[in-house]
């Protein structure tokens, strides 16, 4: 029996090893059905999953709904009137070509938006101002009555249920990877019947990722990069599973928080931040000139401890420009810009569009 068992162990081990190998090379692209999954249900009906796992039934106009979905999780498509609160929702709608026709309301005042089209829309009254994140004007929302509200705020759910407005959460508990960003486009495109645009978007981004990767593989040294910030008591960083960390890696950088996994703006200890900060060549801060940060000195004044890390002594510090968070649909341009920052010798004469160097 002993020999039999041994044979079984060896056999199973060999088979297992063969079966594990595919898992070591995750494929790219396509829906896996988790957050932002889209599933065809036949006759044009689709099921979509929002960022926190809530399922919505999309029903083409004139078709009947399927059982098993609460009324506020049934959406007639194509959606014509959308309310939104997050900058990247706006960016994605712009890419899909539905922003000017479909965006009917936004959370946040006009001066807190960087995009000219949104500001103009609010000024002209075409886009309604629905209040601030901590104080939604529900009466206005009722009047505007969007077909769907895109939001990150779960607190709105009961109120929107009362108003019979489907609310879709477009943030995820874990930081979004590049894959999830692409999947998010398919998800949003399903609402507007713009699946072709999402496919085109994925093709463009994948091509650009491959191009930049090819271009930067020849570099002899990978600059060490950290992305985050120190606030009064807290240290927040981008984990390795965030799209920015992945972009840094694709652009030929060595992301030093590559063992940190979790939510976007993840809190870690000061010791860990310093351990990486003392080795980093390039530091991307979260804070932008919009909050008064336009030089290394200003950042150091805000937090003197930053003066000790390498990017502030001999390295480089970059901050996002105010429109960066509203331009995430331009991932192809962002990846080129990150590559240009990391390897200026490969992109001579490149002018920054999304980031700003702090001197």
């Amino acid at each position, binding site marked *: *029996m*002993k020999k039999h*068992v041994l044979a079984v162990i060896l056999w199973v081990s060999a088979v297992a090893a063969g079966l594990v190998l595919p898992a070591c090379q995750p494929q790219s692209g396509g829906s896996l059905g988790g957050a932002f999954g889209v599933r065809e249900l036949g006759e044009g009906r689709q099921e979509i999953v929002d960022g926190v796992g809530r399922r919505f039934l999309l029903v083409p106009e004139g078709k009947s709904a399927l059982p098993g979905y609460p009324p506020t999780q049934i959406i007639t498509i194509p959606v014509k009137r959308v309310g939104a609160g997050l900058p990247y929702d706006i960016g994605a709608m712009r890419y899909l070509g539905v922003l000017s026709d479909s965006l009917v309301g936004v959370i946040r005042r006009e001066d807190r938006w960087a995009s000219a089209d949104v500001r103009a829309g609010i000024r002209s009254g075409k886009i309604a101002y629905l209040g601030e994140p901590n104080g939604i004007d529900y009466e206005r929302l009722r009047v505007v009555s969007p077909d769907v509200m895109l939001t990150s705020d779960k607190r709105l759910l009961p109120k929107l249920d009362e108003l019979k407005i489907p609310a879709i959460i477009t943030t995820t508990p874990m930081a979004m990877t590049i894959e999830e960003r692409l999947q998010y486009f398919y998800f949003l495109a399903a609402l507007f019947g713009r699946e072709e645009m999402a496919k085109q978007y994925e093709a463009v981004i994948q091509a650009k990722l491959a191009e930049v990767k090819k271009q930067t593989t020849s570099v002899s040294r990978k600059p060490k990069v950290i992305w985050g910030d120190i606030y009064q008591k807290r240290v927040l960083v981008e984990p390795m599973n965030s799209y920015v960390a992945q972009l840094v890696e694709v652009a030929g950088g060595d992301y030093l928080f*590559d*063992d*940190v996994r*979790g939510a976007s703006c*993840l*809190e*870690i*200890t000061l*010791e*860990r*931040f*310093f*351990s*990486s*900060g*003392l*080795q980093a060549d390039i530091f991307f801060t979260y804070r932008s000139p919009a909050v008064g940060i336009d030089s290394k000195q200003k950042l150091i004044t805000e937090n003197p401890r930053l003066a000790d890390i390498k990017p502030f002594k001999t390295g480089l510090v970059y901050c996002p420009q105010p429109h960066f968070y509203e331009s995430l649909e331009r991932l192809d341009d962002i990846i080129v810009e990150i590559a240009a920052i990391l390897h200026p010798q490969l992109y001579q004469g490149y002018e920054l569009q999304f980031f700003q160097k702090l001197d």
Partner: protein
Amino acid sequence: MPYETNIFYLAVVCYGLSASALWFRWSGLSFIFLGLGLLANTGSACLRMINSWPLLCLYQEPFLLPLGLAVVTLWLARHRQPTEAVKIIPLIALLAIIPVFFPKDFFLPFLKSHCIFSHLFLYLGVAARACFLAGAVLAGAFLWARHRNDQGQQAVAQLDFPTLLIWGYVFLSLALFSAGLWSYCGWGTLVVWEDAMVLAIAATWFLYACFLHLHLNGRWSVTWRAGFALAAGLVVIVFNYWPETGKFQLPGGLW
């Protein structure tokens, strides 16, 4: 640097001295340093626990495992043969150095760890793995004694390595129940699918369940069982211990 980190470094030095004393065959001195290391390690662990209480610090296992192994070693020295117990000391010294250079304790505690079962899960899990690793060392010692035809050592190790694995299995079972109850209290389910570690821990439980069946059934010879225990110890290191460590960093962020 926080006090608890400095005290842990002190424990590492003591464990290192304990292993070094063995090199010169000063067993008595080795046990004295082991005891001091255990004291410092316990102090460091208690400080961490008190500081974060009622929440749980994450990725503490690499800091606690040397403590668990030191307790097992001293117990074996007291109740069995010191010559057998000392074989575990080099492993303790090695495992104590690893979190100094590969720490992963840089995450802040999360709110859902405010649950007695989360603490039980950590400490019972550490106890289980300490027993498994000590058992693997003794299984290795048994195989070595057999190779050298040392009958006395064989007889002792043959008795002790299954005992340690049985206790490890009991602790791991209780740790898994605690994990299930913690998950239910916090998330309303019995398994939280956030980290692949859930699968690694479950795999370890089934592996040792298999060992127990082989041991109680007696169809495999002791030599084969010792080989199994040694291999299972490697699985514990690779799939349970290593994922709890971070990437290489110089201590304390001083460089």
